[in-house]
């Protein structure tokens, strides 16, 4: 029991990293982590856990995120000037800046973004991603492929950048 508690706590920095990349906004990301942990603790004391703690936590976060994405939201947020530079390829050779990649990720549909991120950040195998998200591996592959291609297009300035206001 105690070991499992510390396993969950040990995953928090990874959950925060993933959440930050997934939702972009720092406060929203931390809210997502908070909700994930609360749900995890509440389920944890009531249900027997099966399988890997990390995969379980990422599944919970995924489900919570989906709930949030599906919830209709009217709030929009004005993008700062930096948004205009999304399509501009970084000046120094091929190096991509943090701001570029973060802005480009925002332009991916969330279902592609989460797969691109789980593979890059958590280095999950495609099977693990499929299990975590509860979708077939084939779907994982097609979303990964489309996500990466879209990211490439955005970074190369081939894709249309979103209008100035995005619905968050």
């Amino acid at each position, binding site marked *: 029991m105690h070991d499992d508690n510390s396993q969950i706590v040990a995953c928090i920095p990874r959950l925060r990293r993933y959440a*930050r990349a997934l939702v972009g906004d720092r406060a929203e990301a931390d809210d997502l982590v*908070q909700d994930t942990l*609360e749900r995890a*603790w509440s389920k944890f*004391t009531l249900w027997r856990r099966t399988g890997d703690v990390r995969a379980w936590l990422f599944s919970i976060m995924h489900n919570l995120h989906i709930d949030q994405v599906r919830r209709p939201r009217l709030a929009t947020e004005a993008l700062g000037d930096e948004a205009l530079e999304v399509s501009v390829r970084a000046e120094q050779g091929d190096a991509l800046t943090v701001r570029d*990649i973060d802005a480009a990720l925002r332009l991916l549909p969330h279902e592609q973004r989460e797969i691109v991120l789980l593979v*890059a950040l958590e280095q999950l195998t495609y099977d693990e991603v499929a299990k975590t998200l509860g979708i077939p591996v084939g779907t994982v592959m097609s979303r990964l492929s489309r996500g*990466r291609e879209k990211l*490439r297009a955005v970074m190369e300035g081939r894709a249309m950048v979103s209008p100035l206001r995005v619905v968050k």
Partner: protein
Amino acid sequence: MSKLPITEADLHAYVDGLLPEVRRAEIEAYVASQPGEAERLRTYREQKDAIRAAYQGVLDEPLPRGLPLAPPRAPRWQRYAALVAWALMSGGVGWTLRGEMQSAPVVALGPSALPAPVASLPHQAAVAHVVYSPDVRRPVEIGADQEDQLVAWLSKRLGTPLKPPKLGGLGYELIGGRLLPGAHGPVAQFMYHDVTGKRLTLYVSTEFVDNKETAFQFAQEGLVNVFYWLDRNFGYALSAGIDKGELARVAIEVYRQVSPEGSTPTGDSK
């Protein structure tokens, strides 16, 4: 070289280092002959590197304050703390909600501890459990295979709609149910068992119409542990010879399913 066609999935698996050595070599050779593909895959690798670099710093950030780093103390039971107050005040019983169930003091409620007939509820339930649960041949009057009939019959006899909760999610399947005499009238008993054959009974009485609702209360009757509570017009008692923590999990689920407002004890802890 293998004759397997090279797919888009292979190319991604190559980028992600997920291919077996032989296949990796094949893809490498293929990519070497395709400058366009090589460039594309190189870009994907850069994306991965850029993503990792962009968010690497988050790993080292101090955790924001207020993150729950441990299970809440007395999870869920806090919700019942207010409800239990009347029982404590009326009988001075030392059932306190302190910490987790496992560490809470075990208090066998004496017959004088609570106003009758509530005090008799766990005792009656435990007796019924002891009498019927060891019965191998005929533990119930109507089996779960005739659940509709069981529900109709018990509902009719108790004069109010009654349905056995579904506990399959916790590993307990309904065996069936029977009608029993209570202190003043009919009482229903549902019986469940798990894969190991452990039996658990839910005793449902309508004899407590004057009482509103109470918290979960625990009693030990010999080797039988009983959780019982009142909810509107029903008195519920869950009995089994299983440990208190396990029984509490089941009690929470039963409560969730039978509570009229459908409140969920596992709900939002904010």
